[in-house]
């Protein structure tokens, strides 16, 4: 018999609504599965068992009484551990916040909880969302459910792995330079980085404020649209939050791709791209062409500079955002500190991991007098050049299509020693954040090691419905995600 937790969010909702299954039963199945499988995957870092069961009972009442009809009511979810959750520790996978229990919730999580979603626990990540492999974490690396010798990607590795391993109905991740899309691609799940401003950042522990964006990781495209329907809303607590006035994210899913134009930037298909990934992407584009879309090569020459611009801007902002961790009001305080200067320096020195320190140093350097213009300011100019190039491309194409990452998942430990090499691989994702655009990753195939490949769709601001519509067509064309996954595991 099929396990409940293998169902998509939509399928689960239909059964819950029909009264064929109960929320508590469903939640217990997920919790049992987490107990069984988390030790090998290590996606959850905090489990909220009692709270989840209480929420499940409450959700069941609201469903049964018809008080709540949201597709998310009663659906077990997991939350990346950089979103504040009232009364539940929020660590950012850092020693700095190992014991931090927020007295407030992030708006995004709050919205989902109010709709009756059940929070199973908090998910592993790279410390303060800095990294591409979920190896920079005090909790030990998250492993890829497809093959535990491989990384899950990062920084939302826990969020992607939990969905791939059916340990959550859906999850939330955050994406500053690819942190939803790359792990989604590595784990064979759907991941969406929304247009900057669509999902409130209030309560999302800031990495780089002008780039950070929360988004869903789901089992399929329909689920992604359903989560977007609930998580997107204007938030007066976030000055950069915007209102969505384009209707339900689900309504265009089945409209097909006929007549749509796809741009393939040459820079996304250069020699850095792994052959297996290239083949799968091109094959998928062919399938879309067969359904009436047109594909054409284009150029985004500025993208070459996306990685340095991204790292300079994100590290600069991070150097300020992470300055508040000083061991005074919350967070790690060095036991050895004898004076105020040592409280600062030692608490931060002990509380932050190596990659975080590296970025703080880089960002501080880029903002310091003498380098501010040459590095930080220059990066902001390059950012505009890249945004303008994308804008011009969208005059010609409905979407930009290409890979999310040059390779499929790599092995644990493989890239840890070479930070620059790790950074360079963000080439296909970072530009999207710089320009504030939406980017959707959908699984589209497997490589010769049977690891998933994701295809990335990039649209103009607020074009999420169009991306989901094409994503849905891809899903239908390459076969459903579950079939693909079975193929992988066979």
């Amino acid at each position, binding site marked *: 018999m099929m396990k409940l937790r293998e169902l998509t969010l939509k399928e689960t909702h239909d059964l819950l609504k029909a009264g064929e299954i109960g929320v508590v039963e469903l939640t217990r199945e997920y919790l049992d599965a987490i107990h069984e499988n988390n030790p090998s995957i290590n996606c959850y870092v905090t489990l909220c068992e009692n709270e989840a069961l209480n929420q499940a009972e409450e959700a069941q009442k609201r469903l049964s009484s018809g008080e709540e009809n949201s597709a998310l009511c009663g659906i077990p979810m997991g939350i990346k551990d950089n979103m504040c959750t009232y009364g539940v520790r929020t660590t950012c996978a850092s020693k700095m916040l190992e*014991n*931090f*229990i927020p*007295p407030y919730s992030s708006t995004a999580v709050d919205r989902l909880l109010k709709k009756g979603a059940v929070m199973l626990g908090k998910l592993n990540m790279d410390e303060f969302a800095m990294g591409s492999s979920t190896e920079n974490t005090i909790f030990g690396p998250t492993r890829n459910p497809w093959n535990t010798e491989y990384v899950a990607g990062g920084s939302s590795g826990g969020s992607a792995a939990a969905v791939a391993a059916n340990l959550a109905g859906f999850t939330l991740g955050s994406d500053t330079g690819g942190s939803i899309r790359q792990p989604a691609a590595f784990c064979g799940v759907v991941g969406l980085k929304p247009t*900057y*401003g669509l999902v409130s950042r209030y309560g999302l522990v800031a990495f780089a404020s*002008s780039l950070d964006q929360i988004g869903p990781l789901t089992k399929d495209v329909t689920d992604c649209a359903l989560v977007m329907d609930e998580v997107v809303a204007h938030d007066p607590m976030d*000055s*950069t939050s*915007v209102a969505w006035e384009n209707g339900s994210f689900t309504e265009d899913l089945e409209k097909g791709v006929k007549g749509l134009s796809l741009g393939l930037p040459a820079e996304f298909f250069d020699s850095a791209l792994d052959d297996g990934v290239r083949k799968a992407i091109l094959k998928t584009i062919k399938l879309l062409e067969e359904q009436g879309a047109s594909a054409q090569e284009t150029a985004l020459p500025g993208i070459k*500079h996306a990685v*340095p611009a991204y*790292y*300079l801007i994100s590290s600069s902002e991070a150097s300020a955002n992470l*300055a508040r961790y*000083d*061991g*005074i*009001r*919350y*967070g*790690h*305080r060095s036991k050895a*500190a*004898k*004076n*105020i200067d*040592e*409280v600062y*320096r030692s608490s*931060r*020195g*002990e509380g*932050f991991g*190596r990659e975080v*320190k*590296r970025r*703080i*140093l*880089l960002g*501080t*350097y*880029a903002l310091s007098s003498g380098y501010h213009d*040459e*590095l930080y*300011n*220059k990066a*902001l*100019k*390059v*950012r*505009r*050049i890249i*945004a303008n190039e994308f804008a011009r491309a969208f005059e010609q194409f409905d979407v930009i299509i290409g890979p999310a990452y040059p390779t499929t998942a790599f092995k644990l430990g493989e890239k840890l020693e070479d*930070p*620059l090499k790790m*950074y360079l691989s963000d080439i296909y994702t970072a530009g999207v954040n*710089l320009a*504030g655009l939406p980017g959707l990753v959908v699984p589209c195939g497997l490589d010769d090691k049977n690891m998933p490949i994701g295809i990335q769709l990039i649209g103009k*601001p607020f074009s999420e419905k169009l991306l989901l519509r094409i994503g849905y067509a891809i899903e239908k064309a390459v076969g459903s995600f579950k079939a693909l996954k079975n193929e992988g595991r066979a």
Partner: protein
Amino acid sequence: MATDVETIKKIAQLSALSINESELEGFAKDLDMIIGYMEQLSKLDTGDVKPMEHVLPLHNVLREDVPTHVNRREELMNNAPETANECFMVPSVVDA
């Protein structure tokens, strides 16, 4: 340009980070490599392009001046490593 150990010490001071002697060398090497790479930007002619701080064309997002206050001191101070007399506490600050 070179980010040597001295530069790292200076930036570490500015960012209030203690860095072990044993790590200094490694950070200097990493940063030298990374910043060396980033410097490709400085060679780029960006002409009269304006810096882009925000991607959204938003302006004047303002709050009405209405207090929404509730006293939550206890909750807000729960995470503090050291407190006394309803205050956060740190070792003596000479200048206070």
